[in-house]
């Protein structure tokens, strides 16, 4: 049996609790993700996919229910521990690539390692260069983020997500803003990483073609997982 990287039990999320405008956007979500699994999360806009991703990514907290990352209950952790766990276990790829514009491609990839260790080092630089080579951008290592195409930036974002060698990468519509060719290249890159290193992926997408190429598809509708 594959090791469980992520487990959600009866997770609910509500906003404006206690106010007349209280809204529950996630209802009793149960979800498991095994180590090395590539999962697609689909659903219409406003169905709660991004909220679910934020909770899984430890950027947001559930109103009720349990969230376990590598078997560890998140409710028991403080802010510093959550930050540490997020930095070491989870990588993020966002729809709008969101590189830090003041830094070059290499420096963007170095950033998670730099935040973790405090000081730059030859080892960190070498790892960033290896990751950029892995995503086919070694020639662009010295380019500022704004001097690259959308597809290239998203590949840098994938390399950055892998910098800390995470167990899980959360990708929120990473191909949403890319043309078909670039979208396919970025997806294939993530699939390759998944196959080569066993990193689990949770991919939010509207693209059914891509979703069908994942190991498993979960559909979220109105804050519930459709069976």
């Amino acid at each position: 049996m594959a090791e469980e990287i992520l487990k959600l039990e009866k997770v609910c999320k509500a906003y404006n609790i206690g106010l007349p405008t209280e809204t529950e956007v996630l209802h009793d979500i149960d979800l498991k993700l095994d180590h090395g699994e590539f999962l697609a999360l689909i659903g219409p806009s406003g169905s709660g996919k991004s909220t679910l991703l934020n909770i899984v990514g430890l950027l947001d907290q559930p109103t009720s229910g349990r969230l376990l990352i590598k078997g560890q209950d998140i409710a028991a952790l403080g802010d510093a521990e959550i930050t540490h766990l997020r930095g070491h276990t989870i990588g993020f790829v966002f729809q709008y690539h969101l590189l830090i514009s003041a830094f070059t491609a290499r420096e963007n990839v170095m950033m998670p390692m730099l935040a973790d260790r405090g000081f730059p080092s030859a080892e960190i630089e070498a790892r960033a260069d290896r990751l950029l080579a892995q995503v086919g951008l070694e020639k662009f290592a010295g380019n500022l983020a704004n001097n690259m195409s959308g597809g290239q930036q998203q590949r840098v974002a994938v390399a950055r997500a892998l910098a800390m060698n995470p167990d899980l990468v959360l990708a929120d519509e990473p191909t949403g803003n890319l043309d078909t060719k670039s979208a396919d290249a970025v997806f294939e890159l993530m699939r390759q990483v998944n196959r080569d290193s066993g990193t689990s992926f949770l991919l939010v997408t509207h693209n059914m073609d891509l979703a069908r190429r994942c190991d498993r598809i979960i559909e979220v509708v109105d804050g519930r997982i459709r069976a």
Partner: protein
Amino acid sequence: MNRWLPFEWIAAVRFLREGRLQTIFIIGGISIGVGVIVFMSAMLAGLEANFIKRVLTSQPQIQLLTRDQIARPLRNGAHEVEDAVVQRPSQRVISIDQWPKIRSQMLAMSEVTAVSPTIAGSVLAVRGDASRAVTLTGIEPDSYFNIVRVPDYITVGEARLTSEDIIIGIELAKNLGATVGDKLNLQAAGGANRVLTITGLVDFGNKGVNQRTTFVALRTGQSLLGMIGGVTTIDMTIKDIYAAEDIAQQIQAATEVEADSWIATNAQFFTAVQAQAYTNTLIRLFVGLSVAFGIAAVLIVSVIQRSKEIGILRAMGTSRGQILRVFLVQGGVLGFVGSLFGAALGAFALVYWHAVARQADGTELFPLILERSLFVYTALLATITGLLAAMAPAVRAAKLDPVVAIRG
């Protein structure tokens, strides 16, 4: 990427470099603020030093005098006082009782740097048909010149005072049509009469003073004023000029003489000096505050502009403390760099103003005092101001909810 710089410094410096225009403008603002502080502080310190030098080198810092002579009420017997109007008696010019002993006491005080006995009174200066009532001051040149720098104010001749010499004010010389080498006849109210040779003309920068001032040797003064062996005042200088009033009061309590400090006798001047110091402090405070608000405003805008990037950094595992430090470092760097340019700007303005601004007589308006400590303290103050000003934006950045920040 500099390997010796920590993450927070790298991010802070890059953020400042990327927002180049914003950074240049705020550093410009800080530089002007710091420049104003450096310029004001150095110039006002110089002006104050100059004023004080002028005041305190032309008069003693503490002067000991005989106490006022008072009329004693007439008593008929024990506890019975005659019902009569007691008039204030006229004040005779009398010598300080046992003045050599008092001089020794004063010299023994650690705060005192110079002591000189003098005798002062009114005489008539006569030359040909012209005569003027003048203040005759008999002095011991060696000790007195340490208190009142008469040689510094000599414009013609020299500060030589034998028993046959006299130094007079330049206005008095004009009125009497006299100059160095001329004879001057001094006639005292008591009938004494001496003819002295003018050896020097002094200019204390005050017309009234220059019309009345005459200096003679102490013995000559005693002889003219009919007070052989006596002195009317003991003049003193002290180490801390601002402690003059306290020391004067201590002396007055411990001796039989009256002690007047320069603070009491120049109350208006002292008030003006203090008002200038308060004004300088207030100007520095408000300039400092406007610099702080400028830094804070720029960094708050930066936090808003960079909220997505802050969200990404948080998502990547950057702690709240690290985000806080990234913005604090930006504030500190802005303050420090601004202070360097500001110090250079202030020093340049000061050198220029020192060259341009002159007094009526062509001498410098203020001495050029560029102390290293002023620049060190200003840089330190500006850096601390930058750090404090960055506190609110930094806390705001650290508290940003990554979900909200990334969503924008």
